[in-house]
């Protein structure tokens, strides 16, 4: 408690608070642009921190990180073009809500869910960091594989309208994810001699192509109709207290899901968002509302993806193992500033660590504040004519894809996948399973093969380890349940 109070006192400098505020705003803007991820923002602004003290420097990156994860939801809801892959789950219900004229409400809900998820995850971080880190250490290749399979099993829930097409989308994504150097043997697969393909199809250009470019091409088909050129009417209807009360439980367990998944190295906010979405749908009495503008469909992924940020800091600070890509960059930043993450960090630099904890809570509060203040501005995007929005979004898609590796190859990948995504969407194939497959496919394959190496080819390793067995059982249940519900509905 004393350390926390000292942390609060250390934080109360005008320059520290200013840096935190500005970094959250920049993070929100970065996160909102398709292709500019929170990780990229953290990496791009890392050099700015070299001249700062450790507290200001790390808090700047934390502000970008937290703001970036939230920012993706803004464009996901308003334009169905998630700024970050973790907002892809938010778009499923957020965009239909905006189309019905409730964009303001959806933004309010996503902001509040993100703020609550973020604050609670930092509180959990402070209380249970050592315990969670120890549990996360028990995750080895079989558990990681089981988690990836569990993540993929969500597809039946997302693609409940057409399960067969959803599975086809998923396997297309899984096959695309095998392009590049084999993770175990290093053999180049499906590269056809092209050096650019050795690192595989990058996730960021693929997500920009599928969600941003494909969505813009879908918008373009409406340009012939003058009436359809105008977007939607915007009703400034906020979130009612009764509506919020009904979502509290969803936000709380989604926060738990996000926080837990965040502690697992390699499992980021994109996975937690989809898992939380699936759980919200599974536990809901009104499953049919999902995909058509369900408030729970917005609250769950947003609470989870921001809760992942706190969870990802757990293994980073306690063990020196980054929880996701953004914290991997932050690991470098911590070391540059003379902080060696690991079990001794709390002893050697306890005052700095607790100042960072308090800073994280303040960052989430600022995110909540700026998000709520900015809603009215964000929602004005919906009033812009589609013919003006289309070229602007496409230019941002090109920049976003290019910025990743400073090469035009990723831009071409984005373009081709965008065209593929357009035709798939027009033909009724859901695109979210492709993204899930691109994220989880490599993780599943690598951990599956590593697990078999560990067990010398014995596949019972996945069932003999309790965590892995439980996750695989959950995966089977998650996969089968929506199918059974669908069959039941068709019979009645």
């Amino acid at each position: 408690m004393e350390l926390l109070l000292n942390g609060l006192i250390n934080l109360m400098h005008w320059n520290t608070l200013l840096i935190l505020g500005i970094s959250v705003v920049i993070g929100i803007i970065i996160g909102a642009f398709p292709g500019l991820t929170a990780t990229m923002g953290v990496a791009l602004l890392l050099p700015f921190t070299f001249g700062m003290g450790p507290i200001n420097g790390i808090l700047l990156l934390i502000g970008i990180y937290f703001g970036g994860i939230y920012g993706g939801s803004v464009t996901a809801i308003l334009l169905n073009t998630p700024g970050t892959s973790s907002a892809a789950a938010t778009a499923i219900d957020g965009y239909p809500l905006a189309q019905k004229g409730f964009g303001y409400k959806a933004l309010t809900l996503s902001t509040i869910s993100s703020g609550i998820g973020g604050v609670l995850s930092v509180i959990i971080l402070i209380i249970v960091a050592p315990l969670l880190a120890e549990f996360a250490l028990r995750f080895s290749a079989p558990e990681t594989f089981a988690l990836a399979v569990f993540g993929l099993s969500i597809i039946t829930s997302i693609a409940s309208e057409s399960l067969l097409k959803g599975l086809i989308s998923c396997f297309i994504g899984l096959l695309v994810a095998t392009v590049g150097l084999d993770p175990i043997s290093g053999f180049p697969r499906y590269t056809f001699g092209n050096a650019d393909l050795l690192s595989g199809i990058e996730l960021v250009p693929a997500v920009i192509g599928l969600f941003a470019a494909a969505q813009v091409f879908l918008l373009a088909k409406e340009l012939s109709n003058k009436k359809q050129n105008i977007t939607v009417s915007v009703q400034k209807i906020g979130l009612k207290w009764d509506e919020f009360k009904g979502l509290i439980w969803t936000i709380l367990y989604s926060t738990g899901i996000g926080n837990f998944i965040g502690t697992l190295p390699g499992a980021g906010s994109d996975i937690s968002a989809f898992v939380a979405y699936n759980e919200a749908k599974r536990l809901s009495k009104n499953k049919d509302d999902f995909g058509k503008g369900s408030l729970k469909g917005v609250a769950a992924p947003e609470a989870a993806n921001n809760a992942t940020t706190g969870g990802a800091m757990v293994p980073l600070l306690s063990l020196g193992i980054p929880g996701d890509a953004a914290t991997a960059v932050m690991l470098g930043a911590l070391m540059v500033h003379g902080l060696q993450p690991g079990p001794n960090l709390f002893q050697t630099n306890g005052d700095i660590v607790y100042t960072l904890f308090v800073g994280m809570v303040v960052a989430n509060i600022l995110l909540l504040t700026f998000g709520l203040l900015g809603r009215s501005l964000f929602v004005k995007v919906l009033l812009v004519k589609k013919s003006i929005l289309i070229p602007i979004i496409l230019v941002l898609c090109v920049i976003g894809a290019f910025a990743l590796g400073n090469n035009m190859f990723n831009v071409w990948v984005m373009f081709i996948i965008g065209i593929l995504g357009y035709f798939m969407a027009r033909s009724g194939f859901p695109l979210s399973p492709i993204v899930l497959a691109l994220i989880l496919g490599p993780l599943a394959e690598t951990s599956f093969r590593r697990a078999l190496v560990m067990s010398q080819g014995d596949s019972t390793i996945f069932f003999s380890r309790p965590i892995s067995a439980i996750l695989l059982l959950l995966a089977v249940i998650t996969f089968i349940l929506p199918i059974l519900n669908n069959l039941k509905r068709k019979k009645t």
Partner: protein
Amino acid sequence: MKQIDIVWSFITIAIAVFCLSVTYSFPNVTSNEISHASIPRFYAIALIILAIVLLIKTLKSKANYKENSIRSGWKQVFLIISIMFLYILLIPIFGFYPMTILFVIGALFIGKIRRFILLLTIPISVVLFVYIFFEKILRVPLPYGSFFS
């Protein structure tokens, strides 16, 4: 959707068969049962099976589908995709900024924006914003093109 589903089934089968055949050109790794070819093969075979199921389901289905909604608005989509293709193709030659101005003007024209003031201000605003935010603040270097370098 019926016709489209049949087309997609065949396209998917063709792609999956191609991917499967490529895996047989991967060198064998005898020491490990799960080789670099195993997982792509599994995915390709699963895709073939799913595509065949979709094909059978579509052919057997008696439901009345809304045919060919994919053709509506095709002209605008084709034009936008075409100018985007040219835009990406010519960026390495003429640079990002000149091509962005031309692309935005072209896309606005396709979107039936004809007012000169909009055709002038929107592309310039976009380019200015990109230059200040991306190049100056975020330090993302954008290509200047071989023509001007």
